[in-house]
Protein backbone atom coordinates (compact mmCIF):
# COMPACT_ATOMS: atom_id res chain seq x y z
CA UNK A 1 0.00 0.00 0.00
CA UNK A 2 1.32 3.41 -0.90
CA UNK A 3 1.59 6.06 1.73
CA UNK A 4 0.11 9.55 1.88
CA UNK A 5 2.53 11.77 3.74
CA UNK A 6 1.92 14.98 5.66
CA UNK A 7 4.97 17.06 6.49
CA UNK A 8 5.92 20.48 7.74
CA UNK A 9 8.25 21.97 5.17
CA UNK A 10 10.23 25.14 5.70
CA UNK A 11 9.92 28.03 3.28
CA UNK A 12 13.47 28.54 2.12
CA UNK A 13 12.88 31.30 -0.37
CA UNK A 14 10.08 33.35 -1.87
CA UNK A 15 10.54 35.46 -4.97
CA UNK A 16 8.12 37.49 -7.04
CA UNK A 17 9.08 36.41 -10.55
CA UNK A 18 6.49 38.51 -12.36
CA UNK A 19 3.71 40.78 -11.26
CA UNK A 20 1.49 38.56 -9.08
CA UNK A 21 3.59 35.42 -9.75
CA UNK A 22 5.62 33.84 -6.96
CA UNK A 23 8.31 31.21 -6.91
CA UNK A 24 8.29 29.43 -3.58
CA UNK A 25 11.18 27.19 -2.56
CA UNK A 26 10.41 24.68 0.18
CA UNK A 27 12.50 22.12 1.99
CA UNK A 28 12.40 18.59 0.56
CA UNK A 29 10.23 15.76 1.85
CA UNK A 30 11.93 13.55 4.38
CA UNK A 31 9.56 10.62 3.97
CA UNK A 32 9.17 10.57 0.19
CA UNK A 33 11.84 10.17 -2.44
CA UNK A 34 10.48 10.18 -5.94
CA UNK A 35 8.39 12.86 -7.59
CA UNK A 36 6.72 12.45 -10.96
CA UNK A 37 6.02 15.43 -13.17
CA UNK A 38 2.28 16.15 -12.90
CA UNK A 39 2.07 15.32 -9.20
CA UNK A 40 0.94 18.02 -6.81
CA UNK A 41 1.08 19.04 -3.17
CA UNK A 42 -1.87 20.12 -1.04
CA UNK A 43 -1.02 23.04 1.24
CA UNK A 44 -2.63 24.45 4.36
CA UNK A 45 -2.76 28.19 4.66
CA UNK A 46 -1.75 29.22 8.15
CA UNK A 47 -2.51 32.62 9.63
CA UNK A 48 -5.65 32.85 7.53
CA UNK A 49 -9.23 31.85 8.16
CA UNK A 50 -9.22 29.77 5.00
CA UNK A 51 -10.28 26.29 5.96
CA UNK A 52 -9.27 24.15 2.99
CA UNK A 53 -5.94 23.36 1.49
CA UNK A 54 -4.92 24.52 -1.98
CA UNK A 55 -3.31 22.33 -4.64
CA UNK A 56 -0.08 23.27 -6.41
CA UNK A 57 1.78 21.32 -9.06
CA UNK A 58 5.36 20.51 -8.25
CA UNK A 59 7.38 22.83 -10.48
CA UNK A 60 10.84 21.49 -9.75
CA UNK A 61 12.82 19.70 -7.08
CA UNK A 62 16.40 19.04 -6.20
CA UNK A 63 17.07 16.17 -3.81
CA UNK A 64 20.72 17.27 -3.63
CA UNK A 65 19.87 20.75 -2.38
CA UNK A 66 16.85 19.28 -0.63
CA UNK A 67 14.42 21.74 -2.21
CA UNK A 68 11.03 21.75 -3.91
CA UNK A 69 9.93 24.65 -6.09
CA UNK A 70 6.34 25.77 -6.53
CA UNK A 71 5.16 28.50 -8.86
CA UNK A 72 1.87 30.22 -8.25
CA UNK A 73 -0.17 33.15 -9.37
CA UNK A 74 -2.20 35.21 -6.89
CA UNK A 75 -5.78 34.59 -7.93
CA UNK A 76 -7.84 34.73 -4.78
CA UNK A 77 -7.75 34.38 -1.01
CA UNK A 78 -5.64 31.23 -0.78
CA UNK A 79 -2.88 32.31 -3.08
CA UNK A 80 -2.87 35.78 -1.48
CA UNK A 81 -2.34 34.14 1.93
CA UNK A 82 0.49 32.04 0.50
CA UNK A 83 2.13 35.10 -1.05
CA UNK A 84 2.12 36.74 2.39
CA UNK A 85 4.26 33.97 3.91
CA UNK A 86 7.95 34.56 4.52
CA UNK A 87 11.11 32.47 4.42
CA UNK A 88 11.70 30.80 7.77
CA UNK A 89 8.03 29.98 8.25
CA UNK A 90 6.81 26.44 7.70
CA UNK A 91 3.97 25.04 5.64
CA UNK A 92 1.87 21.97 6.32
CA UNK A 93 2.18 20.01 3.07
CA UNK A 94 0.32 16.88 1.98
CA UNK A 95 1.90 15.00 -0.90
CA UNK A 96 3.19 14.30 -3.42
CA UNK A 97 -0.31 13.41 -4.61
CA UNK A 98 -1.89 12.18 -7.83
CA UNK A 99 -0.50 10.42 -10.87
CA UNK A 100 2.15 11.97 -13.07
CA UNK A 101 2.73 11.93 -16.82
CA UNK A 102 3.77 8.74 -18.63
CA UNK A 103 7.16 9.26 -20.24
CA UNK A 104 7.22 9.12 -24.06
CA UNK A 105 9.51 6.81 -26.05
CA UNK A 106 12.82 8.33 -27.04
CA UNK A 107 11.97 8.19 -30.77
CA UNK A 108 8.83 10.27 -30.39
CA UNK A 109 8.50 13.97 -31.07
CA UNK A 110 6.88 15.75 -28.20
CA UNK A 111 4.58 18.72 -28.34
CA UNK A 112 4.34 20.43 -24.99
CA UNK A 113 1.74 23.09 -24.33
CA UNK A 114 2.04 25.19 -21.19
CA UNK A 115 -0.70 27.78 -20.78
CA UNK A 116 -0.03 30.46 -18.17
CA UNK A 117 0.17 29.10 -14.65
CA UNK A 118 -0.24 25.59 -16.13
CA UNK A 119 3.46 25.74 -16.95
CA UNK A 120 4.99 24.08 -13.83
CA UNK A 121 4.14 20.40 -14.47
CA UNK A 122 5.04 20.72 -18.16
CA UNK A 123 8.40 22.24 -17.32
CA UNK A 124 9.12 19.45 -14.85
CA UNK A 125 8.25 16.79 -17.40
CA UNK A 126 10.59 18.38 -19.96
CA UNK A 127 13.31 18.72 -17.35
CA UNK A 128 13.01 15.09 -16.28
CA UNK A 129 12.96 13.88 -19.91
CA UNK A 130 16.03 15.89 -20.88
CA UNK A 131 17.82 14.69 -17.78
CA UNK A 132 17.03 11.09 -18.73
CA UNK A 133 18.62 11.62 -22.14
CA UNK A 134 15.65 12.65 -24.29
CA UNK A 135 16.87 14.79 -27.19
CA UNK A 136 15.68 18.35 -26.36
CA UNK A 137 15.42 19.20 -30.05
CA UNK A 138 12.56 16.69 -30.23
CA UNK A 139 10.61 18.71 -27.68
CA UNK A 140 8.47 21.54 -29.09
CA UNK A 141 7.73 23.60 -25.99
CA UNK A 142 4.87 26.07 -26.47
CA UNK A 143 4.47 28.54 -23.64
CA UNK A 144 1.53 30.92 -23.83
CA UNK A 145 0.13 33.73 -21.73
CA UNK A 146 -2.00 36.83 -22.04
CA UNK A 147 0.95 39.23 -22.03
CA UNK A 148 4.71 39.16 -21.65
CA UNK A 149 4.27 39.45 -17.86
CA UNK A 150 2.55 36.06 -17.82
CA UNK A 151 5.51 34.23 -19.39
CA UNK A 152 7.37 33.99 -16.11
CA UNK A 153 10.49 31.88 -15.60
CA UNK A 154 11.14 31.63 -19.32
CA UNK A 155 14.89 31.65 -18.71
CA UNK A 156 14.63 28.41 -16.75
CA UNK A 157 12.78 26.75 -19.63
CA UNK A 158 15.34 28.10 -22.10
CA UNK A 159 18.13 26.29 -20.24
CA UNK A 160 16.59 22.95 -21.24
CA UNK A 161 17.41 23.81 -24.89
CA UNK A 162 14.10 22.54 -26.17
CA UNK A 163 12.52 24.22 -29.18
CA UNK A 164 10.80 26.97 -27.27
CA UNK A 165 7.85 28.84 -28.81
CA UNK A 166 6.52 31.66 -26.65
CA UNK A 167 3.14 33.13 -27.49
CA UNK A 168 1.08 36.00 -26.07
CA UNK A 169 -2.51 36.97 -26.76
CA UNK A 170 -1.52 40.60 -27.41
CA UNK A 171 1.73 39.88 -29.21
CA UNK A 172 3.86 41.60 -26.55
CA UNK A 173 6.23 38.62 -26.73
CA UNK A 174 6.67 35.83 -29.28
CA UNK A 175 3.80 34.65 -31.44
CA UNK A 176 0.69 36.87 -31.35
CA UNK A 177 -2.39 34.79 -30.65
CA UNK A 178 -3.64 31.78 -28.75
CA UNK A 179 -1.32 28.95 -27.87
CA UNK A 180 -3.34 26.59 -30.02
CA UNK A 181 -2.88 28.95 -33.00
CA UNK A 182 0.86 29.07 -32.32
CA UNK A 183 0.93 25.28 -32.39
CA UNK A 184 -0.92 25.12 -35.72
CA UNK A 185 1.49 27.66 -37.21
CA UNK A 186 4.48 25.47 -36.38
CA UNK A 187 3.02 21.99 -36.74
CA UNK A 188 1.41 22.06 -40.16
CA UNK A 189 0.43 18.89 -41.84
CA UNK A 190 0.85 15.44 -40.39
CA UNK A 191 4.42 15.05 -39.33
CA UNK A 192 5.94 11.81 -38.11
CA UNK A 193 4.81 10.84 -34.63
CA UNK A 194 3.79 13.38 -32.08
CA UNK A 195 2.77 13.10 -28.51
CA UNK A 196 1.06 15.96 -26.72
CA UNK A 197 1.54 17.00 -23.09
CA UNK A 198 -0.45 19.96 -21.87
CA UNK A 199 -1.57 21.93 -18.84
CA UNK A 200 -3.31 25.28 -18.84
CA UNK A 201 -6.66 27.03 -18.99
CA UNK A 202 -9.80 25.05 -19.72
CA UNK A 203 -10.30 26.46 -23.22
CA UNK A 204 -6.79 25.53 -24.28
CA UNK A 205 -7.07 21.99 -22.94
CA UNK A 206 -10.43 21.55 -24.60
CA UNK A 207 -9.01 22.66 -27.95
CA UNK A 208 -6.01 20.33 -27.61
CA UNK A 209 -8.22 17.43 -26.59
CA UNK A 210 -10.32 18.02 -29.71
CA UNK A 211 -7.15 18.37 -31.84
CA UNK A 212 -5.69 15.16 -30.44
CA UNK A 213 -8.87 13.20 -31.00
CA UNK A 214 -9.51 14.40 -34.57
CA UNK A 215 -5.87 14.14 -35.69
CA UNK A 216 -5.39 10.91 -33.74
CA UNK A 217 -2.43 12.30 -31.84
CA UNK A 218 -2.01 10.67 -28.45
CA UNK A 219 -1.11 12.60 -25.37
CA UNK A 220 -1.88 13.56 -21.85
CA UNK A 221 -3.47 16.57 -20.19
CA UNK A 222 -3.09 17.70 -16.60
CA UNK A 223 -6.54 18.80 -15.42
CA UNK A 224 -7.85 20.85 -12.53
CA UNK A 225 -10.85 20.86 -10.24
CA UNK A 226 -11.40 22.49 -6.86
CA UNK A 227 -10.09 19.98 -4.33
CA UNK A 228 -11.43 19.94 -0.79
CA UNK A 229 -9.43 16.90 0.36
CA UNK A 230 -6.88 16.00 -2.33
CA UNK A 231 -6.77 12.34 -1.27
CA UNK A 232 -9.96 10.91 -2.75
CA UNK A 233 -12.34 10.84 0.20
CA UNK A 234 -14.70 13.79 -0.38
CA UNK A 235 -15.78 13.04 -3.98
CA UNK A 236 -15.79 16.77 -4.68
CA UNK A 237 -13.12 17.10 -7.39
CA UNK A 238 -14.91 15.06 -10.05
CA UNK A 239 -15.04 15.44 -13.83
CA UNK A 240 -17.18 13.40 -16.24
CA UNK A 241 -15.48 10.60 -18.20
CA UNK A 242 -16.19 10.18 -21.90
CA UNK A 243 -16.96 6.51 -21.23
CA UNK A 244 -19.50 7.49 -18.57
CA UNK A 245 -19.31 8.07 -14.85
CA UNK A 246 -17.04 10.43 -12.99
CA UNK A 247 -13.37 10.47 -12.11
CA UNK A 248 -11.70 11.98 -9.04
CA UNK A 249 -9.10 14.39 -10.37
CA UNK A 250 -7.04 14.20 -7.18
CA UNK A 251 -6.83 10.42 -7.15
CA UNK A 252 -7.25 9.02 -10.68
CA UNK A 253 -5.75 12.24 -12.15
CA UNK A 254 -4.74 14.98 -12.39
CA UNK A 255 -3.10 13.63 -15.57
CA UNK A 256 -5.43 11.99 -18.09
CA UNK A 257 -5.07 10.64 -21.62
CA UNK A 258 -6.48 12.80 -24.40
CA UNK A 259 -10.11 11.83 -24.93
CA UNK A 260 -10.52 10.23 -21.53
CA UNK A 261 -12.34 13.08 -19.81
CA UNK A 262 -15.32 14.92 -21.25
CA UNK A 263 -14.00 18.49 -21.31
Amino acid sequence: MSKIVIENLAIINKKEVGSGYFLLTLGFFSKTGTIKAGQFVHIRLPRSNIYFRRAFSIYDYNPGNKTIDLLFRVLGRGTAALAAMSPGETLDVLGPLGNGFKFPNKNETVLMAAGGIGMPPIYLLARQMVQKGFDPSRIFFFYGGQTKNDLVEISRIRKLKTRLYPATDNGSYGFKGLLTEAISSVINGKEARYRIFACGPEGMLKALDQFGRTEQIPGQLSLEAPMPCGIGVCLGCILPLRAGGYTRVCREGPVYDIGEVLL
Partner: protein
Amino acid sequence: MTSDLSITIAGIKFKNPILTASGTCGYGEELAEVFDLSLLGGIVTKSITVKPREGHPPPRTAETEGGMLNAIGLANVGVDKFIEEKLKFLEPFETRVVVNVAGAAIKEYVEISARLADCPRADMVELNFSCPNVAEGMTIAGSAALAERAVREVKAVFPRPVMAKLSPNVTDIGEIARACEAGGADALSLINTLVGMAVDIKSYRPRLTNNTGGLSGPAIKPVALAAVYKVSRAVKLPLIGIGGIIDYRDVIEFMLCGASAVQIGTSLFVEPDAPIKIIKDLKKYLSENKLGAVKELIGKLRPY
Protein backbone atom coordinates in the same frame (compact mmCIF):
# COMPACT_ATOMS: atom_id res chain seq x y z
CA MET B 1 -1.83 5.92 35.36
CA THR B 2 -3.03 4.56 32.04
CA SER B 3 -6.36 5.96 31.05
CA ASP B 4 -9.09 3.81 29.60
CA LEU B 5 -10.26 5.25 26.28
CA SER B 6 -12.74 2.48 25.54
CA ILE B 7 -16.45 3.05 25.24
CA THR B 8 -19.26 0.53 24.99
CA ILE B 9 -22.29 1.42 22.91
CA ALA B 10 -25.23 -0.98 22.67
CA GLY B 11 -23.02 -3.83 23.84
CA ILE B 12 -20.31 -3.11 21.28
CA LYS B 13 -16.92 -2.13 22.59
CA PHE B 14 -15.02 0.62 20.76
CA LYS B 15 -11.31 0.91 21.66
CA ASN B 16 -11.72 4.69 21.79
CA PRO B 17 -14.56 7.17 21.18
CA ILE B 18 -13.19 8.44 17.84
CA LEU B 19 -14.92 7.32 14.64
CA THR B 20 -14.72 8.78 11.15
CA ALA B 21 -18.01 10.11 9.72
CA SER B 22 -19.90 8.75 6.75
CA GLY B 23 -19.06 10.38 3.42
CA THR B 24 -15.81 11.83 4.65
CA CYS B 25 -13.64 8.71 4.71
CA GLY B 26 -14.92 6.74 1.71
CA TYR B 27 -14.67 3.04 2.52
CA GLY B 28 -11.37 3.45 4.34
CA GLU B 29 -9.06 2.66 1.44
CA GLU B 30 -7.52 6.12 1.08
CA LEU B 31 -7.26 6.85 4.82
CA ALA B 32 -5.47 3.51 5.24
CA GLU B 33 -2.64 5.13 3.26
CA VAL B 34 -2.47 7.91 5.86
CA PHE B 35 -2.64 5.94 9.12
CA ASP B 36 -3.40 2.48 10.49
CA LEU B 37 -7.18 2.18 10.58
CA SER B 38 -6.84 -0.18 13.54
CA LEU B 39 -6.06 2.87 15.68
CA LEU B 40 -9.60 4.18 15.22
CA GLY B 41 -12.53 3.49 17.49
CA GLY B 42 -14.50 2.89 14.34
CA ILE B 43 -15.09 3.84 10.75
CA VAL B 44 -18.50 4.77 9.37
CA THR B 45 -18.55 4.01 5.67
CA LYS B 46 -20.05 6.19 2.93
CA SER B 47 -23.84 5.85 2.61
CA ILE B 48 -24.67 2.86 0.46
CA THR B 49 -27.81 2.40 -1.60
CA VAL B 50 -29.38 -0.63 -3.31
CA LYS B 51 -27.96 0.36 -6.71
CA PRO B 52 -24.68 2.20 -7.41
CA ARG B 53 -25.06 5.97 -7.79
CA GLU B 54 -22.84 8.49 -9.58
CA GLY B 55 -24.18 11.43 -7.62
CA HIS B 56 -24.80 15.00 -8.74
CA PRO B 57 -22.83 16.75 -11.50
CA PRO B 58 -20.00 19.12 -10.48
CA PRO B 59 -19.60 21.48 -8.80
CA ARG B 60 -20.89 19.57 -5.83
CA THR B 61 -18.77 21.08 -3.07
CA ALA B 62 -18.20 24.72 -2.16
CA GLU B 63 -15.95 26.25 0.46
CA THR B 64 -17.71 28.53 2.97
CA GLU B 65 -16.67 30.43 6.08
CA GLY B 66 -15.44 27.84 8.58
CA GLY B 67 -16.71 24.91 6.59
CA MET B 68 -18.19 23.75 3.34
CA LEU B 69 -21.33 22.89 1.46
CA ASN B 70 -21.74 19.55 -0.26
CA ALA B 71 -24.31 18.01 -2.51
CA ILE B 72 -22.50 14.84 -3.52
CA GLY B 73 -25.82 13.14 -4.15
CA LEU B 74 -25.03 9.86 -2.39
CA ALA B 75 -22.45 8.72 -4.92
CA ASN B 76 -21.59 5.16 -3.91
CA VAL B 77 -20.74 1.71 -5.27
CA GLY B 78 -24.05 0.06 -4.31
CA VAL B 79 -24.57 -2.68 -1.77
CA ASP B 80 -23.32 -5.60 -3.93
CA LYS B 81 -19.89 -4.15 -4.65
CA PHE B 82 -19.75 -2.77 -1.12
CA ILE B 83 -20.05 -6.24 0.35
CA GLU B 84 -17.79 -7.94 -2.21
CA GLU B 85 -14.96 -5.41 -2.23
CA LYS B 86 -15.17 -2.68 0.35
CA LEU B 87 -16.22 -4.69 3.37
CA LYS B 88 -13.61 -7.27 2.44
CA PHE B 89 -10.94 -4.56 2.41
CA LEU B 90 -11.92 -3.57 5.95
CA GLU B 91 -11.85 -7.18 7.17
CA PRO B 92 -8.31 -7.24 8.67
CA PHE B 93 -8.50 -3.98 10.60
CA GLU B 94 -9.07 -4.15 14.32
CA THR B 95 -11.64 -1.42 14.41
CA ARG B 96 -15.42 -1.26 14.43
CA VAL B 97 -17.15 -0.95 11.08
CA VAL B 98 -20.41 0.95 11.08
CA VAL B 99 -22.15 0.70 7.72
CA ASN B 100 -24.18 3.77 6.78
CA VAL B 101 -27.32 2.92 4.80
CA ALA B 102 -29.47 5.24 2.66
CA GLY B 103 -32.51 4.84 0.49
CA ALA B 104 -35.41 6.47 -1.28
CA ALA B 105 -37.95 4.34 0.60
CA ILE B 106 -38.05 2.38 3.87
CA LYS B 107 -37.98 -0.90 1.98
CA GLU B 108 -34.55 0.00 0.58
CA TYR B 109 -33.12 0.45 4.09
CA VAL B 110 -34.59 -2.92 4.97
CA GLU B 111 -33.25 -4.60 1.84
CA ILE B 112 -29.69 -3.35 2.41
CA SER B 113 -29.72 -4.09 6.14
CA ALA B 114 -30.95 -7.62 5.45
CA ARG B 115 -28.00 -8.15 3.09
CA LEU B 116 -25.62 -6.81 5.75
CA ALA B 117 -27.11 -9.10 8.39
CA ASP B 118 -25.02 -11.93 6.93
CA CYS B 119 -21.81 -9.89 7.01
CA PRO B 120 -20.37 -10.05 10.53
CA ARG B 121 -17.80 -7.38 9.61
CA ALA B 122 -20.69 -4.89 9.62
CA ASP B 123 -20.66 -4.40 13.40
CA MET B 124 -23.48 -1.91 13.29
CA VAL B 125 -25.66 -0.07 10.78
CA GLU B 126 -26.25 3.66 10.79
CA LEU B 127 -29.41 4.79 9.02
CA ASN B 128 -28.98 8.04 7.09
CA PHE B 129 -32.46 9.50 7.36
CA SER B 130 -31.56 12.77 5.63
CA CYS B 131 -32.31 11.51 2.10
CA PRO B 132 -35.47 12.56 0.29
CA ASN B 133 -38.14 9.89 0.63
CA VAL B 134 -39.64 9.59 -2.81
CA ALA B 135 -43.12 8.30 -1.92
CA GLU B 136 -43.76 10.58 1.04
CA GLY B 137 -42.13 13.69 -0.47
CA MET B 138 -40.13 14.39 2.69
CA THR B 139 -37.10 13.03 4.50
CA ILE B 140 -37.52 10.22 7.00
CA ALA B 141 -35.54 12.44 9.35
CA GLY B 142 -38.36 14.97 9.18
CA SER B 143 -41.16 12.61 10.16
CA ALA B 144 -41.43 10.94 13.55
CA ALA B 145 -43.83 8.34 12.18
CA LEU B 146 -41.57 7.39 9.25
CA ALA B 147 -38.45 7.34 11.42
CA GLU B 148 -40.07 5.03 13.95
CA ARG B 149 -41.32 2.68 11.23
CA ALA B 150 -37.97 2.63 9.43
CA VAL B 151 -36.04 1.77 12.59
CA ARG B 152 -38.55 -0.93 13.54
CA GLU B 153 -38.43 -2.59 10.13
CA VAL B 154 -34.61 -2.53 9.99
CA LYS B 155 -34.40 -3.92 13.54
CA ALA B 156 -36.49 -6.85 12.38
CA VAL B 157 -33.88 -7.89 9.80
CA PHE B 158 -30.53 -6.78 11.26
CA PRO B 159 -29.32 -8.77 14.27
CA ARG B 160 -26.68 -6.33 15.53
CA PRO B 161 -27.12 -2.75 16.81
CA VAL B 162 -29.00 -0.23 14.69
CA MET B 163 -28.19 3.46 14.96
CA ALA B 164 -30.34 6.22 13.49
CA LYS B 165 -28.56 9.35 12.21
CA LEU B 166 -30.55 12.46 12.93
CA SER B 167 -30.87 15.58 10.82
CA PRO B 168 -30.79 19.07 12.32
CA ASN B 169 -33.16 20.30 9.60
CA VAL B 170 -36.28 19.57 11.66
CA THR B 171 -38.54 21.51 14.00
CA ASP B 172 -37.93 19.32 17.02
CA ILE B 173 -34.99 16.92 16.93
CA GLY B 174 -36.02 15.59 20.36
CA GLU B 175 -39.31 14.33 18.94
CA ILE B 176 -37.57 12.43 16.12
CA ALA B 177 -35.10 11.00 18.64
CA ARG B 178 -37.96 9.71 20.81
CA ALA B 179 -39.60 8.15 17.74
CA CYS B 180 -36.38 6.30 16.89
CA GLU B 181 -36.14 5.10 20.48
CA ALA B 182 -39.72 3.87 20.31
CA GLY B 183 -38.89 2.04 17.06
CA GLY B 184 -36.15 0.15 18.88
CA ALA B 185 -33.00 2.04 17.90
CA ASP B 186 -29.90 1.00 19.89
CA ALA B 187 -28.12 4.34 19.49
CA LEU B 188 -28.45 7.70 17.78
CA SER B 189 -25.85 9.72 15.88
CA LEU B 190 -26.19 13.44 15.31
CA ILE B 191 -25.98 15.71 13.47
CA ASN B 192 -26.03 15.36 9.71
CA THR B 193 -25.42 18.51 7.66
CA LEU B 194 -27.54 21.67 7.77
CA VAL B 195 -29.24 22.82 4.58
CA GLY B 196 -27.31 25.76 3.16
CA MET B 197 -26.59 27.73 0.02
CA ALA B 198 -23.88 29.85 -1.61
CA VAL B 199 -24.20 32.06 -4.69
CA ASP B 200 -21.70 33.26 -7.29
CA ILE B 201 -22.50 36.93 -7.82
CA LYS B 202 -20.79 37.04 -11.23
CA SER B 203 -22.95 34.39 -12.88
CA TYR B 204 -25.99 34.72 -10.56
CA ARG B 205 -25.74 30.96 -10.12
CA PRO B 206 -25.76 28.85 -6.98
CA ARG B 207 -22.29 27.46 -6.34
CA LEU B 208 -23.67 23.89 -6.36
CA THR B 209 -25.51 22.34 -9.31
CA ASN B 210 -27.97 21.00 -6.77
CA ASN B 211 -28.63 24.65 -5.82
CA THR B 212 -28.62 23.83 -2.11
CA GLY B 213 -26.31 21.58 -0.14
CA GLY B 214 -25.36 20.43 3.33
CA LEU B 215 -23.24 22.65 5.56
CA SER B 216 -20.52 20.96 7.62
CA GLY B 217 -17.29 21.81 9.40
CA PRO B 218 -16.42 23.98 12.43
CA ALA B 219 -19.21 26.42 11.51
CA ILE B 220 -21.85 23.88 12.64
CA LYS B 221 -20.31 22.76 15.93
CA PRO B 222 -22.46 24.98 18.19
CA VAL B 223 -25.62 23.71 16.46
CA ALA B 224 -24.45 20.10 16.85
CA LEU B 225 -23.61 20.55 20.55
CA ALA B 226 -27.03 22.04 21.26
CA ALA B 227 -28.66 19.14 19.42
CA VAL B 228 -26.71 16.54 21.44
CA TYR B 229 -27.58 18.37 24.65
CA LYS B 230 -31.26 18.45 23.75
CA VAL B 231 -31.47 14.83 22.58
CA SER B 232 -29.55 13.56 25.62
CA ARG B 233 -32.40 14.92 27.72
CA ALA B 234 -35.08 13.48 25.44
CA VAL B 235 -33.95 9.84 25.25
CA LYS B 236 -31.98 7.26 27.21
CA LEU B 237 -30.09 5.95 24.18
CA PRO B 238 -26.33 6.29 23.77
CA LEU B 239 -25.43 9.15 21.44
CA ILE B 240 -22.61 9.67 18.98
CA GLY B 241 -21.91 13.37 18.45
CA ILE B 242 -21.00 14.73 15.00
CA GLY B 243 -20.39 18.23 13.70
CA GLY B 244 -17.32 20.39 13.21
CA ILE B 245 -14.94 18.48 15.46
CA ILE B 246 -11.32 19.42 14.83
CA ASP B 247 -9.51 18.64 18.09
CA TYR B 248 -9.73 16.83 21.43
CA ARG B 249 -11.35 19.83 23.13
CA ASP B 250 -14.28 19.55 20.76
CA VAL B 251 -14.58 15.86 21.63
CA ILE B 252 -14.71 16.69 25.34
CA GLU B 253 -17.41 19.30 24.72
CA PHE B 254 -19.54 16.72 22.91
CA MET B 255 -19.02 14.11 25.62
CA LEU B 256 -19.88 16.56 28.40
CA CYS B 257 -23.11 17.34 26.52
CA GLY B 258 -24.01 13.68 26.54
CA ALA B 259 -22.24 11.95 23.66
CA SER B 260 -20.64 8.56 24.33
CA ALA B 261 -18.46 8.86 21.23
CA VAL B 262 -17.96 11.17 18.27
CA GLN B 263 -17.44 11.09 14.53
CA ILE B 264 -14.90 13.25 12.71
CA GLY B 265 -16.05 14.44 9.28
CA THR B 266 -14.97 17.48 7.31
CA SER B 267 -11.80 17.85 9.42
CA LEU B 268 -10.43 14.80 7.61
CA PHE B 269 -10.31 16.84 4.40
CA VAL B 270 -7.98 19.37 6.00
CA GLU B 271 -6.03 17.09 8.35
CA PRO B 272 -6.45 13.48 7.22
CA ASP B 273 -4.61 12.30 10.34
CA ALA B 274 -6.79 14.41 12.69
CA PRO B 275 -8.32 11.32 14.41
CA ILE B 276 -4.89 10.04 15.40
CA LYS B 277 -3.86 13.39 16.88
CA ILE B 278 -7.17 13.60 18.72
CA ILE B 279 -6.81 10.13 20.23
CA LYS B 280 -3.30 10.99 21.42
CA ASP B 281 -4.37 14.34 22.87
CA LEU B 282 -7.39 12.80 24.55
CA LYS B 283 -5.21 10.27 26.30
CA LYS B 284 -2.91 13.06 27.48
CA TYR B 285 -5.87 15.11 28.71
CA LEU B 286 -7.20 12.19 30.75
CA SER B 287 -3.91 11.50 32.48
CA GLU B 288 -3.23 15.20 33.10
CA ASN B 289 -6.65 15.55 34.68
CA LYS B 290 -6.40 12.30 36.61
CA LEU B 291 -9.36 10.74 34.90
CA GLY B 292 -9.25 6.95 34.82
CA ALA B 293 -11.62 6.52 31.91
CA VAL B 294 -12.93 8.67 29.11
CA LYS B 295 -16.47 7.48 29.80
CA GLU B 296 -16.40 9.49 33.02
CA LEU B 297 -16.90 12.58 30.85
CA ILE B 298 -20.21 11.50 29.34
CA GLY B 299 -23.03 13.86 30.31
CA LYS B 300 -20.96 15.55 33.04
CA LEU B 301 -22.02 19.00 31.86
CA ARG B 302 -23.00 21.37 34.66
CA PRO B 303 -25.80 23.33 33.01
CA TYR B 304 -27.11 26.53 34.56
